[in-house]
């Protein structure tokens, strides 16, 4: 049986959290299901902890709400049974966990996120695993409508469910004006992102000197693009100039200033971390605050994010892709899926930083919402078109085509994209010499090198691709991380040189500056 949309949650965990006030949430859920119905979406609510729900589809209930393997297995069973076009996870991680994937860039001296809490496994066909390389080919449209971590007041979740139920699709022109704030040190990169999205970066504000007291007119724009610093369990984002890190954006200053329907893309480290407000003086995070104030969707990272000092890369790109898809009329969930596809498709293989970027960004919001309407083809205004679809709408049919395309793209990625694997193999002497020279020219003193093999799925070595099999076996990535001889607080002090080597010969080198 196919459903248009499945809302998946843990009812036992919700009841335990909200107690006698649970009926308010149940009524709000019913209102969303009814509103979906009026929009032509057949929606089913599924509880992964319900023996009845799960046995009805031949699955097993997830008895332990924190058992990520049980939950992932239950989600897969629900997806197999209903093949929904939209899968909406209901609840914060204390109701419905993220899937903790091993961080491919883990380094106790640098990126010390041991795991990356991720929703991408729920969007993938692969079975439960903590290996991020298993989840590089998402095929499902997934988003999470979170409640507030640690809070037993149902008002927050009822409000978010209400926003989703009452949402309106608006014209592209309503999303033309944007609000953007960037750390000053990244203004060139952010300006490039905005130019790609909107044709100009003229509306960009830099911090310092601007922020966090943004005007209602600025915050009232329906697209927000933010490229600042973020920290765990922190309700602020921060700008940077030299060793000054002023508050650039603050959750407490957003309250009642966000326009209904706002869509936000945030590059900041921990920008979409769902934390307990009790950890920060009872101030909810920026992502939670946006959603409470009527935002439709928020795309951000659960952990430390990456980007180059100049040009665009990693977080810049995946956030750009998300917003561009939203502005083209994709549903929020489809926009998130396509952003992941576009990001992954750009590479022959994902290096460790690219892989982390792919798994760490997720959508908070109802994935079925189309914030922006599609620009219809001219033929849609023709009499023959209107006559052809007079008695039946073509929405489901075209959505089915989009899902088929996305499934094909995701499946192809999973079966064809290479990923790196740490190896103890030594760096070829001439490559080591080149990297050392490049480091010297960049005034960088190296403090560590790592070598990775690149592994491709077996199927990616067959048929026409078999001609690349031998070539791929001889490919490796070498990473040199070093420090520039700059004042301790200067940005760009750490530099990574990434060398791609083929059969011992250097074929590509890039320099990534830290921010």
């Amino acid at each position, binding site marked *: 049986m196919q459903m248009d949309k499945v809302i998946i949650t843990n009812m036992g965990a919700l009841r335990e959290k909200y107690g006698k006030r649970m009926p308010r949430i149940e009524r709000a859920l019913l209102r969303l299901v009814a509103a979906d119905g009026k929009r032509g979406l057949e929606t089913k609510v599924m509880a992964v902890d319900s023996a009845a729900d799960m046995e009805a589809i031949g699955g097993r209930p997830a008895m332990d709400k924190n058992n990520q393997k049980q939950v992932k297995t239950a989600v897969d069973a629900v997806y197999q049974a209903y093949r929904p076009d939209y899968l909406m996870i209901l609840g914060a991680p204390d109701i419905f966990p993220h899937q903790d994937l091993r961080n491919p860039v883990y*380094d106790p*001296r*640098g*990126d*010390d*996120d041991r795991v990356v809490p991720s929703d991408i496994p729920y969007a993938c066909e692969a079975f439960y695993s903590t290996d991020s390389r298993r989840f590089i080919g998402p095929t499902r449209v997934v988003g999470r409508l979170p409640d507030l971590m640690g809070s037993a007041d149902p008002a927050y979740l009822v409000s978010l469910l209400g926003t989703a139920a009452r949402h309106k699709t608006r014209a592209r022109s309503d999303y033309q004006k944007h609000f953007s704030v960037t750390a000053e040190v990244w203004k060139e990169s952010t300006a490039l992102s905005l130019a790609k999205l909107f044709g100009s970066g003229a509306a960009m504000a830099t911090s310092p000197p601007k922020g966090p007291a943004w005007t209602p007119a600025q915050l009232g724009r329906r697209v927000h693009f933010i490229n600042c*610093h*973020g*920290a*765990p*369990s*922190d309700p602020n984002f*921060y700008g*940077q100039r030299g*060793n*000054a*890190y002023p*508050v650039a954006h603050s959750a407490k200053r957003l309250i009642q200033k966000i326009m209904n329907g706002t869509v936000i893309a945030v*590059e*900041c*480290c921990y920008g979409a971390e769902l*934390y307990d407000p009790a*950890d*920060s*003086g009872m101030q909810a995070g920026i992502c939670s605050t946006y959603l409470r104030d009527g935002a439709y969707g928020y795309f951000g990272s659960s952990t*430390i*994010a*990456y*980007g180059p000092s100049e040009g665009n890369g990693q*977080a810049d790109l995946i956030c750009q892709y998300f917003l561009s898809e939203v502005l083209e009329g994709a549903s929020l969930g489809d926009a998130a899926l396509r952003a992941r596809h576009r990001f992954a498709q750009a590479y022959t293989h994902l290096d460790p930083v690219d892989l982390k970027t792919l798994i760490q960004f997720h959508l908070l919001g109802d994935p079925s919402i189309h914030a922006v309407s599609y620009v219809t083809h001219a033929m849609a205004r023709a009499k023959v078109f209107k006559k052809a679809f007079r008695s039946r709408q073509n929405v489901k049919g075209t959505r089915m085509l989009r899902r088929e395309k996305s499934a094909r793209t995701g499946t192809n990625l999973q079966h064809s994209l290479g990923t790196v694997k740490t190896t103890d193999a030594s760096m070829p002497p001439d490559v080591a010499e080149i990297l050392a020279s490049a480091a010297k020219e960049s005034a960088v003193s190296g403090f560590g090198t790592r070598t990775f093999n690149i592994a491709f799925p077996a199927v990616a070595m067959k048929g026409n691709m078999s001609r690349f099999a031998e070539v791929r076996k001889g490919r490796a990535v070498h990473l040199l*991380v070093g*420090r520039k001889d700059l004042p*301790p*607080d200067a*940005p760009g*002090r*750490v530099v*990574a040189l990434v060398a791609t080597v083929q059969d011992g010969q250097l074929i590509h080198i890039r320099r*990534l500056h*830290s*921010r």
Partner: protein
Amino acid sequence: MKLRGRVTKRLLYAGTKSEHEGLVLASPEGEFKLRRQGGNPFRDDTLAALEGKEIEGEGILRKGQFIMSGWKILN
């Protein structure tokens, strides 16, 4: 919870978007990035005064960070 240890400065999150010089608390339980509840996680002049000192802090541990609500200087 309470943690005791010496406060030192070092480069944190090297190579990431959030790389910065910050304070860590080296305690018998491990090394934790030091923050003050409500303080700026990237540069906090109040905490900067603790560099080199041994302290006993009270607070919470979150993702490798010790977020202090209070502390006393031991020496």
